[in-house]
């Protein structure tokens, strides 16, 4: 505890004095970058010191060398892959589609998963839960003390920017066939989803023949536009994030209490019932063989591997090698029964049954396997 606090204090004090130098503690960690700014996530960075970053040695020359690999993409190549759509309309193409067209596309391509009117279910997300302006007010709901009404987090009530919906439908939906919708189809589906969320554009609800286009779409202001912290827009966006995450109070930080940290006995919350325990496969710490799949065994293969492969696995010992077509064609010249007979009674260097005590039918099974594997 003291070590940690001491180090924090020390590094803060020294940073104030020498703003540009990174201070490495026991772990080599520093709360500030070389430019004197705090690490953006509220954590540490590990500057290179004596040829190392934390415990890792590095080849400093490798990271000072400028490499010129690859090539400049063509304008068409960039256009083909530049598929994102930003809140200010960057990347949003011209086009249009009506709520009615969207409704019918929705029935065809979306309702199977998201259900009628985007009500969701069976694990698939709902696309609306009634009037979005009303629903947005539910975001302060907490399911505690017997309150079962949680916050409503659907497109209309929660998402800060509408551009996200356009981008996501275009590049991620329909789930089995993304990138298959035309620009006008996306406008139509977006119009339909805006309408079922009862959102207004320029004060106007979207009725069936509302024809949504780029200009109108960019006017849509989402009810929860200001519902997110830190503020990341504009030239100060990154600095706002840095400030937010370096104030640990914003997301909580514990204290290292060691004794009598609360009064009385601990208050416990337990799993209700058996909890979520439908796991595939079921939890097991057993060290056993997996259940065999029916039909997965090749007859004779196991016996071959255990008893015959030592001589027949290669031709080094003069025995016909399994897999060698020519060798086995020669063996089979006098017919399979002769081969069975030779194997059972021995031939040349091979003792009867290869020296095993396998029953005749097992020997035949092995021969069949060996012949089959040498065709």
């Amino acid at each position, binding site marked *: 505890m003291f070590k940690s606090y001491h180090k924090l204090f020390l590094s803060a004090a020294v940073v104030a004095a020498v703003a540009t130098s990174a201070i490495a503690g026991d772990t080599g960690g520093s709360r500030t970058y070389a430019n004197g700014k705090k690490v953006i996530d509220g*954590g540490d960075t590990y500057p290179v010191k004596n040829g190392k970053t934390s415990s890792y040695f590095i080849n400093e020359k490798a990271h000072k060398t400028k490499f010129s690999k690859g090539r400049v993409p063509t304008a068409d190549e960039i256009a083909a892959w530049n598929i994102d759509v930003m809140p200010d309309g960057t990347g949003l193409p011209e086009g249009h589609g009506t709520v009615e067209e969207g409704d019918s596309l929705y029935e065809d391509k979306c309702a199977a998963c998201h259900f009628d009117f985007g009500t969701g279910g069976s694990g698939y997300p709902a696309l609306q839960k009634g009037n979005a302006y009303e629903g947005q007010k539910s975001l302060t709901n907490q399911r505690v003390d017997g309150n079962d009404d949680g916050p409503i987090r659907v497109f209309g009530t929660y998402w800060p920017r509408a551009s996200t919906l356009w981008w996501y439908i275009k590049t991620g939906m329909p789930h089995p066939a993304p990138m298959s919708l035309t620009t006008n189809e996306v406008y139509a589906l977006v119009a339909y989803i805006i309408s079922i969320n009862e959102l207004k554009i320029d004060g106007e609800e979207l009725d069936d023949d509302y024809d949504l286009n780029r200009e109108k779409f960019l006017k849509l202001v989402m009810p929860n536009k200001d519902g997110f912290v830190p503020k990341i827009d504009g030239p100060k966006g990154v600095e706002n994030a840095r400030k937010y995450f370096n104030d640990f109070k914003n*997301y909580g930080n514990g204290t290292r209490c060691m004794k009598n940290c609360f009064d009385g006995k601990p208050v416990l919350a337990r799993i209700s019932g058996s909890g979520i325990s439908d796991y595939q496969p079921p939890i097991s710490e057993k060290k056993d063989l997996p259940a065999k799949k029916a039909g997965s065994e090749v007859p004779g293969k196991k016996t071959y591997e255990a008893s015959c492969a030592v001589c027949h696995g290669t031709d080094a010992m003069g025995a016909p090698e399994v897999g060698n077509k020519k060798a086995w064609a020669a063996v089979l010249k006098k017919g399979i029964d002769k081969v069975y007979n030779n194997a059972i009674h021995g031939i040349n260097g091979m003792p009867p049954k290869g020296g095993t005590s396998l029953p005749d039918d097992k020997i035949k099974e092995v021969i069949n396997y060996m012949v089959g594997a040498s065709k």
Partner: protein
Amino acid sequence: MNKITKASSEVNVTSETAIEPSRRDFFRKTAAYSVSALAAASVMAPVKVDAEEHKGKKGDPAILEEKKWGTTFGYPVTHNLYGQPSPYEHNVTRRYTKLLSSGNYYASIAMCPIQDSMGIITPNGLFFNRDHGGVAEIDPNEHRLMIHGLVEKPLVLTMDELKRYPNVSRIHFIECPANGGPEWRGPQFPSIQFAKGMMSCAQWTGVYIKDILKDLGLKKEALWMLAEGVDNSHMGRTVPIDKVLDDAMIVWGQNGEALRPEQGYPIRLLVPGWEGNLCVKWLGRLEFASEPFYAKEETAKYTALKKSGKAIQHFYANEVNSVITSPCPDKPWTDLKKGDMVEIEGLAWSGMGTIEGVDISFDGGKNWVETSLKGLVLPKAWTRFSFMYKYEGKPLLLSSRARDDAGHVQPTVKHEREVMGVESVYHRNGIFTWEVTAKGEVNNVQVLS
């Protein structure tokens, strides 16, 4: 017998044809002496173990009886050219549950069996797997990385060209920020694999993005980078420039081999310590811009709604966290006897730095003692902690509390709820507690004091 063994080992080791005739001669010679041939051959045949022979002998059959694996050949080197675990380990596997599927198993998650993890490295086949549109199987010859936007010189690289940059290898965990997320309102999972298995840790090999950017001339107004995958979901996420210029990597190696398809083969983004979702798999495109992109997975999801009704967005780092892995519900203490010494072991990690220490409590967090850290202690990596305990067969409430070198300490469940409420879904790092019963069974509980 010895000669046979020697001859056959020569066959395996040296394959020069020059010595072939002598082996054949040897085989034919032994054939002439059928008695020795029989003796030789029977050595190679499976020995039938006579149970009667061991009747009356005292001791463990595992010791007294001859075993198949000691009396027959194992499989040859030609078998399993890409090695597989022992079939007896088949229960050590990723697992899934219907309740965490998004209607199907394409946008879903398979959990890492952290109850069976050893050390700080997750084998590639057990690394947790979260996808948004199934596991893409990309032909690396047909894959490109494009870097464009606010750079003087946009760039497109083949995978071979990318791998010509000087590489670094780093051990980092990747954790889905929803790890433990279903338990904001109380414990749900009678299993550590499901309560905390949305994470794994590996050694990643790749290139720092800052090393590529030296040649591209990043413009001053570039504040954000979009990273986008080329799989079914085309998932994108926005990364602030600070991380790009610090330790963000494009990785192609995972524990000494190519990334597995489940981890984004051929390449993924790695932003050490940050939300697993930011480590975009099947990476195809990096675009620099002056404004954030507002991708679906950084607005609709991966935002932490607080009691105030405001949600934290761009919640980058996974905060300091820990869990006791032994005992746990999946591996309880039911085999212990009173008086046994037993090691309590666990994992600690912080996306904001290096683990500085871990305390554990036997009474649900009222009183604490410090544990020993064990093995390598690295930034933004799993870290093992260990404590020797004399088992008394008493009921216990076993909790762990980690802290990192940036000054973060794991909060109590109570404190975390005071700050965040219970509807955040993401970034839950409150102190985790196991209830150990008098029989040594282990239950998932939360201490609300």
